[in-house]
Every structure is written in structure tokens, then in C-alpha cells.
């Protein structure tokens, strides 16, 4: 069981609350978690990762366990507390005014 926290606008798009619970098979990585998220909530495809390249959108960051994992390789294992469900994987929007 993976816990995932989405920013406000993506929660609205997916009609979910603050935290999403996902079942992810195999290694727990950024890619496998986001694949599972998009499979469950297809309306989020293209909003976190570019449709074509699957690169993280520039103004979004990935945090977990008080670490910024945004620039980690997508297939690198996520921290054990995320994999075990103790800590959430957080998708967060960059701060900007206006």
C-alpha cells in the first residue's frame, strides 16, 4: 500500500481527498507509483508528467521523508517508509504568486 498526497488542483480533477491509497506491484519507484496513479485516475495523465517524454512537469516537485526526490531517476527505489506505507509520497506544486 502506497500513500500519495496530491496538490489541491489535482485532487479536484481526480475527485479525491488529500491522500490517495494505491496498490503498486513490483519495485516501488517514482515511475511505478505514478503509473499506478495514472491507471487509477486517468484524468491525471499529462498533469504530473509530460505525455510524450514522461518527464516531471517543471513546476512540480516530488517530496518524501523530508527529502526532495524530484531529480532522482524515475526507476530508483523510493525510501523504505514510502514503500511500506509509513510515509506518503508527496506531489507538490512550486510556489508562485499571482
Amino acid at each position, binding site marked *: 500500500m502506497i500513500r500519495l498526497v496530491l*496538490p*489541491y*488542483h*489535482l485532487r479536484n*480533477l*481526480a*475527485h479525491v481527498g488529500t491522500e490517495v491509497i494505491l496498490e503498486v506491484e513490483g519495485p516501488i519507484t517514482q515511475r511505478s507509483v505514478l503509473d499506478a496513479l*495514472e*491507471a*487509477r*485516475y*486517468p*484524468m491525471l*495523465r*499529462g*498533469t*504530473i508528467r*509530460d*505525455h*510524450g517524454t514522461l518527464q516531471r*512537469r517543471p*513546476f*512540480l516537485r516530488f517530496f518524501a521523508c523530508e527529502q526532495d526526490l524530484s531529480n532522482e531517476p524515475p526507476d530508483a527505489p523510493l525510501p523504505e517508509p514510502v514503500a511500506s506505507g509509513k510515509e506518503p509520497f508527496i506531489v507538490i*506544486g*512550486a510556489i*508562485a504568486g499571482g
Partner: protein
Amino acid sequence: MSHVRVLVGTRKGAFILSSDGKREKWEVSGPDFAGWEVYHMKGSPADPNRIYASQTSGWFGQIIQRSDDGGKTWHQPGTPPGEPTTTPQGLPKGESNKFVYDTSAETGKPLTTHQWYDGTQHPWEFKRVWHVEPSLTDPDTAYSGVEDAALFRTTDGGKNWKELSGLRGHGTGPQWQPGAGGMCLHTIILDPSNPRRIWIAISAAGAFRTDDGGKTWKPINKGLRSQYIPNPEAEIGHCVHHVAMNAKRPGVLFMQKHWDVMRSDDAGDNWKEVSGNLPTDFGFVIDAHTHEPETIYVIPIKSDSEHYVHGGKLTVYRSRSGGNEWQALTKGLPQKDCYVSVLRDAMAVDSLDKCGIYFGTTGGQVYCSADAGDSWNPIVRDLPGVLSVEVQTLA
């Protein structure tokens, strides 16, 4: 009794303004898609309950929303939540926000770059949908004009979008260059008398036309003159801001260019300037009266360096002679200390008699004239900055 539904896209969401045919009392609903930029919303002429909306964000990218009940509820066309995104054969299902440029060997291979600000070649990068133009006859068919400039079409109600790559591929694509607002395809006009003819316009490339349903295209910029490009009369490179046409007289086009108001009587093959006595011929919007083919409207903006209305006075100019002779329309509009702008897609006309004219400002006001421009009233005054205004006339 007829009524009207005004679709307003703003920098922070979508609003729907409704009234009966008198257009005096209004109901305001929204914001829908609160906090998102809504570049454009437009209803299908074939089914007024079908409305498409372009919802976009610098953070989360592009979303296409669709309503099948006149804007009461919305959904993203495509795969329902919880269902697999691929078919049992592994093929992707609909992805309504997937705008992928055609790079196929057959039609798209040469179309990989355009000119960048520094003169180098730059890859086409999708940013957002500026304008959605539903088909005149089929609610499930619509066209999207996007940044970086290209034209896409859906034939399944917005679930899937496919580029009409003949536009970028007709030959001048690599010379196109973005204006300050980005390289956007912002105008799409469908010819009601010829389903194979479409006009589009791009900032800052110019106007283009297809006569074969989007397969092949040609620039139609003869007669345009733009001092900000090395050859002022070049085939492409003109910053066309908007083009309008009276649907009852296809082929007669009116254009608000960066500077200059222009007119074509031959479907865009040749243009002539009709700025006439306007106080300034810079501006963004232009629209045509529904019933009077020679009556057109513009809202002059002071200059390309000062994007607000001329003289601190919000003034619509109307020509009843197809240009050149313009009349200032000010009744009901602020005539001092007004420094708003009106963006290119933020004017619309209804089809009632008398023709209603609507526009929205960067200051969040939406004005209506129920008498073809003679007098104006604000419908709302304090919305977020208005990006687009469309109106549906409903039975």
C-alpha cells in the same frame, strides 16, 4: 422566448452568464475550474448543450473539459476513472489532454522546428489550447488551436486529438516565430457554405486557409504590411491578432492585426486596410454584426507599448460601412481613468434582433450591449481578468 448564455473564460476559472432575450437581468454561475486559466469555451452550433472548455495551468498543463448539459456539469472526455487506460490489446484509450505533434515519416517528419527569438531553430513544444472551435454540424467534432502553433481535430467528442499537420508542413512552418504572447493559433473560422474551407490565424505568422478540409494550406497575407519584420510585405511573419467573418457572407473577412484593421473580399487572397478614422489601429478584438454584413466592431488599444484603451476611455468603435468610417460608442462605458485591455477572443455577438454585443476586459468586467452597440451595461464588474467571451443564442 429566446435567451442567451455567455461563456466567459478568465485567468482564474470559467463563468457562465445567463439572461433572457431582453438581456437586462443576469444570472452568474461559477467559477468552474476555479484557480485555473480558462483560455476559451465554446458551444456546439449543432448541439447547444455541448460545450468545450480549455482549462490550462503552468503547473499541471492542459485539460479539455466537456459539458453535455449546457455547462451545469463538466467532465474530461476519455477514460472514466477506475478503468484501464489501455485496451486489452494494449492500445491507449482516449486521452483528452494529449496533444502530440505529428512527427510521422509520411506527414510530420520535416516539422520538427520553427524559428526562435534568437533566429535559431527551436523544437515545437505544446503549451496550451488557445481556442476550441466546434464543428458547425457535428457535436463530436471540434478543432483546437494550440501554442506552439498547430491545429488539432477531434471527431470523438474530445477524447482524442489529431494534428492536421498539413498546416505546419505546407512550407513556411520553419520560418514561423513566436510573438511576445507566444506562438499561438488563436483564430479558427469554419466556412458555413463550404465544409472543406477553414481559415486560421497565428501570432506571429499570419493567416492561412485550407480549401480541402485541412490537408493542404496556404498563407493568405497579401496586402498586410508590418513594419516590425524585415520585409514589411513578407508572405508570413505578420502578427494577426484576430479575424472575424459574418456567417451569412462567407469569404468577406475582417482582421485586427497588431497594428491595422484590414478587410478581404476574396476569402483572404488580398487584404486592404480599413483603419480609417480610428484613434489608434492597434488592438486585439474584432467582430462582425450577425445580421448586417457591413457592420463591424473593434476596441482600439493605445499601442503595442501601452496595452490599455486609448485616452483612459473604454470605447467600442463600430463601422457600418465595412471599415474606414468608424463611430465611437461610449454610452454606458467608463470614460475616465480606465486602463484595461480587451484580449483577442474576448468579444462575441449573439443572433437576436437587435444584435447583442459582448466583451470582457482584463479588469474583469463583462459588458453587454442589447442594441448593437448603441448603449452598454456591465453584466459583472469584478471577475478575474477575462481571456475569452463567447455567446450562445438559445431558443
